């Protein structure tokens, strides 16, 4: 009887370990994660900017990609459009209102493998508003870096409307664009 109990415990432990081995957790590497946005400037040209301070966790399930999850945030006070006065204006209540809403967050809801890519739906929280977004994520590579850390990374592009998130200042046609194209290039190191 005791032998049977020990055997059952060993089998259960092995099963749990096997399940855990299927998933790999990665911590977002802020130094190798970039969020770049592009917005129309009154029809004259596009303005580009970057947001840094990325943080978060990615959990990848190799056997069941649908069970993969991620939650990534970025600090909006790092916004940089190469013009300090514009950066100050973007941080003001006219746009991101960084004092009240210091971070933006992207949290996964569903992940579906589509060939070599992933179709993802996630909740984007920005300016205190949470809206669902959909995008296709391309995983670029998973492997060891020169310092023996296991890394994974990929890129995606999504388009959002800032008025959906309550950023209505100068959002009419002919003013500053409503649609914002966001390119995210993310890397994580295994934890």
């Amino acid at each position, binding site marked *: 009887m005791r032998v049977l109990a020990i055997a059952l415990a060993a089998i259960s432990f092995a099963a749990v370990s096997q399940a855990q081995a299927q998933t790999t957790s990665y911590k977002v590497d802020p130094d190798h994660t970039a969020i770049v946005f592009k917005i129309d400037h009154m029809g004259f040209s596009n303005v580009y900017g970057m947001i840094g301070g990325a943080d978060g966790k990615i959990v990848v399930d190799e056997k069941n990609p649908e069970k993969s999850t991620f939650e990534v945030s970025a600090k909006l006070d790092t916004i940089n459009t190469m*013009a300090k*006065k*514009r950066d*100050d*204006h973007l*941080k*003001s*209540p*006219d746009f991101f*209102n960084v*004092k*009240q809403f210091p971070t933006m967050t992207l949290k996964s809801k569903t992940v579906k493998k589509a060939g070599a890519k992933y179709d993802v739906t996630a909740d984007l929280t920005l300016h*205190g508003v949470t809206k669902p977004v959909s995008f296709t994520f391309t995983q670029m590579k998973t492997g060891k870096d020169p310092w023996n850390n296991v890394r994974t990374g990929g890129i995606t592009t999504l388009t959002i409307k800032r008025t959906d998130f*309550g950023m*209505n*200042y*100068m959002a*009419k046609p*002919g*003013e500053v664009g409503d649609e914002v194209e966001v390119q995210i290039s993310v890397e994580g190191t295994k934890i």
Partner: protein
Amino acid sequence: MDSPIVRAFLMSAVAPASVAAVVIFLLGFLKEPWKARAQGLVFALAFSAGAFVLIRRLHVPPTDAGEAFSLAALLLAVFIFVRPQPLGHRYLVRALFVLALGAVILYPLRQTILAPIYYRNLVAFFCLALGVWSIVEKTAPKVMPTTLILLPLIAATGLSLLMLFAASASYSQIVSVACALFGAALVLALVKPQRLSMNALVPFLSVFVILLMAAGHFYLDINPWHMIYLCLPYFVLWIRDWLGFVPKKTLPEGLILGAVSAAPLAYFVYNIGVKAGPLY
């Protein structure tokens, strides 16, 4: 009307102020306290409408300062409806109401505002709001209606400019809605002062302006001392009795006290603008 800024000003400030002026004029036939109640409500609704045109959202509870300003204006109208007469010595009622208004204005910042670093300034703005409300209420019978409206209008205009220099055009535009409404009331006070209820206007001219100043400090990190300087017109109102050489007539009083208040503020705001640099 090519400029979106001019268009926004006309739609959000001039239009509601014009409509409010006509409605307030028509409601001027009512007797007190109903005149105060009705005109207070019109004022609050016109302000909220102007703010809504600018920010295009209004949630309860408020999610940002723009929405909080609208709700505070409506709460002030409710207060005027319940208590249309001057408060006089009822400082406890005044204090409770300032606290309620302040809570609405600062509600979006509730998670960060209750930190020791902010306590001193919260108390300071609370006392300032109480004091200014008292001053304007006590001065109301002693000055011409145009002067009572003009001096707070000067303070509010200075505040709108400071907000603009602090890189918040949207909050500056919302305060300019209040300025336009004060301007409309000023025109009415010049043309037909008996149609205007000062009991309705006094809270908007006093405590509401101070709470907008508090919002400028807590939301935009504008130096609180700059808000103290903006209160110079209220100080001029306070010492009106000591300025016996100023005639108690509409135009001379308005021009002299207006100039005494506006000149130093204009110099101060101009210097802030120069330091802030070109607008973006």
